């Protein structure tokens, strides 16, 4: 038997299939399976509050992977994620609450409609790059929110709409853990899809577009098709995340999809690591839990300085901003890079040279 504490020292690939594999060695495969099982067992050990947070993390991860497909892998900046989440949420709300369709129909339709709206706003990406594109997608944010808050007949205007949790037969996903499982399963599908996407022609075309679009075009990649496709695929997942979030909070309202949400999603993929699926998830977890963690720190300090509570509440925002800035300065490649650094450190340990 192999000593489990000894690290791999070489990994020779003899077949192209091996080079293409998602998990290059068996041990990684087992480890990933273990991680997935751990995620499934987790609700048995945690209380409802922690499961609720984990659900929010899972939903944010789906959205962050979506955004990372567009920004991290295809190099197209989008500041309209918040509004696309809203499109997903509202589509699902209208389909289930107004039209009485089942959640299981509404969810994929919400994804598809968000994908088409995303593709529509992706059209300018052929001509616009970088900051110009960022502002064009910012327009999407404002236009979509404007439509949502003014089209009162369809969306209920600023008062929003009320949704129900999904159900199968008589079983309703009302409890914290059941909804967590639902989101977790969809997240796993998203991960598997995204990992496979970048082994396919489409995914590779995305990478080529990101690295040098002129070169990609010379290679025969149709820039317009792939850029719009990237917007569509990315928005699909953002829409799914939006629908899941809407059914989780059981409300949609224009206030939930402000520009702040878009910035948060951008922060997720920046902090997590651009162009990394693992990074998207780590970033989503980090940004979702950071305010919670800061809340604990503030409560802890407030015990010693009870009169300061109101002042500390204001520091919350400051600390949030500071953590993100420090992150971008000291680890611009994100949490995914920290993780791979840790792995490499242990791989060669104790002989680091």
């Amino acid at each position, binding site marked *: 038997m192999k000593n489990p504490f000894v690290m791999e020292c070489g990994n020779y690939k003899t077949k192209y299939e091996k080079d293409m594999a998602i998990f290059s060695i068996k041990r990684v495969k087992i480890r990933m399976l273990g991680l997935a099982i751990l995620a499934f067992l987790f609700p048995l050990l945690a209380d409802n509050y922690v499961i*609720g*947070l984990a659900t929010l993390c899972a939903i944010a991860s789906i959205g962050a992977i979506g955004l990372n497909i567009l920004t991290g892998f295809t190099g197209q900046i989008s500041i309209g994620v918040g509004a696309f989440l809203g499109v997903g949420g509202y589509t699902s709300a209208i389909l289930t609450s107004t039209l009485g369709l089942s959640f299981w129909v509404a969810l994929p339709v919400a994804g598809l409609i968000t994908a088409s709206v995303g593709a529509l706003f992706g059209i300018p990406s052929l001509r616009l790059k970088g900051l110009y594109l960022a502002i064009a997608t910012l327009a999407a944010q404002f236009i979509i929110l404007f439509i949502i808050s003014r089209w009162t007949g369809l969306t209920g*205007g*600023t008062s929003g709409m009320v949704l*129900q949790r999904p159900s199968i037969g008589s079983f309703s996903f*009302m409890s914290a853990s059941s909804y967590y499982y639902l989101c977790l399963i969809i997240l796993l599908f998203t991960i598997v899809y995204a990992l496979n996407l970048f082994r396919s022609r489409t995914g590779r075309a995305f990478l080529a577009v990101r690295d040098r679009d002129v070169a990609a075009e010379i290679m025969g990649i149709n820039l317009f098709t792939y850029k719009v496709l990237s917007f569509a695929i990315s928005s699909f997942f953002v829409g799914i995340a939006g629908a899941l979030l809407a059914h989780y909070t059981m409300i949609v*309202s224009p206030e939930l999809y402000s520009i*702040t949400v878009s910035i948060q999603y951008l922060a997720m993929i920046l902090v997590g690591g651009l162009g990394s699926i693992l990074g998207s998830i780590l970033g989503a977890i980090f940004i979702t839990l950071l305010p919670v963690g800061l809340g604990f720190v503030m409560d802890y300090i407030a015990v010693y300085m009870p009169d300061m509570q109101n002042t500390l509440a204001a520091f919350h925002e400051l600390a949030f901003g500071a953590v993100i800035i*420090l992150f971008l300065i000291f680890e611009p490649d994100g949490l995914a890079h920290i993780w791979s650094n840790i792995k490499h450190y242990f791989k060669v340990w104790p002989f680091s040279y």
Partner: protein
Amino acid sequence: MLLLCFMLLMGVMAACSGEEGAAGGDAEAADGDTVKIGALFDITGGTGDVGTPYSEGEKAYYEYLNSQGGIDGTQVELIGDDYAYDMAKGQRLYQELRDKDNVSAILGWGTADTEALRQQVANDQLPYFSASYSENLKNLEESPYNFLTAATYSDQGRAVVKWIKENHEGENPTLALLYNDTAFGRSPIEDIKAYAAEVGVEVVDEQVIPVTATEAQSQMLNMQGAAPDYAIIQQTWGATATILREAQTLGIDTQFIGLNWATGEGVVEIAGDAAEGMLGVVTHAFPYEDLEGLAEMEEYLESKGESLEDVSQKFVQGWVTAKIMAEGIGNAEELNGEGIRKGIEQIKDMDLGGLAAPVTFSADNHAGTNKVRLAEVKDGKFEVITDYFSYED
């Protein structure tokens, strides 16, 4: 590496406080002489100007109540936090209150978040008092656990329209509506317009002004064009003061009437003499009025080395809201959400010592009252000019 340490530390702290919360819950179930009330405060958010004194009023009342022996010996523990008028944060805080702190009832804040939470509140059976008096919350089918402790924004607006109709000199009063583009701002607009059309007050203009606005010149210029006799303001202190200042600069002679969150000492403080002559809907008393209900508050404030001069009307509002909740808890047979809801539904004509209109709840009516008073700013101070009245009187 430093960051990693920070994260680990945070993880450890999260785990610790998680256990603490669970232990607290067990203790509560065992001896049962503490009841936990959750609260969502807005201290740093868009409506923090009125949210801060309101939250202090709520905290103060329970502190006072506990010092007086609680509710028949039951101590009230208020667990609240700032959610910065952010729905997503409010949602997270609500979960924390429900799952970690195991609260039995909640004192909420804004319109958007209260409306957002009403389904979950109903599902979790947690009675919910919001500082939002949105008409939507009256709907018992959609919000069976929400209670309104003062007249709804729509009822306030209707009362103002009725007052305009009755007190206007000359013919056909014209009205403008100034509000912000949030669920809170838009809440009474359609109802006011419908009621105005019914009684014959013409709505000639509507202007949207952000709740955090520090200038509103273009909107006020637009309004000036329509030259309304009256303008109803649905904002909080900051934006109201902005409107009054711009009106003064532009020389607009419209009579401004603020709904309850636009009324209070803060407006005069910020707007100065621009506030002179403004009318305001008063749902809760000013601390400088001569009312028996203020005695308790004075006693509490003196024990803290303060006086009634240090608090504002919004403090009274928080105090009264907390007091109505305490009454409901006192009526409850069981100290859980369902029991407290039934307790609140037993409240009949609760006398608040003049601090607010008496409230009545029942199983099929969760709107405590529809009565308001009007006050006018004279020499830098709101002076109440009417008795409690409603549009139905």
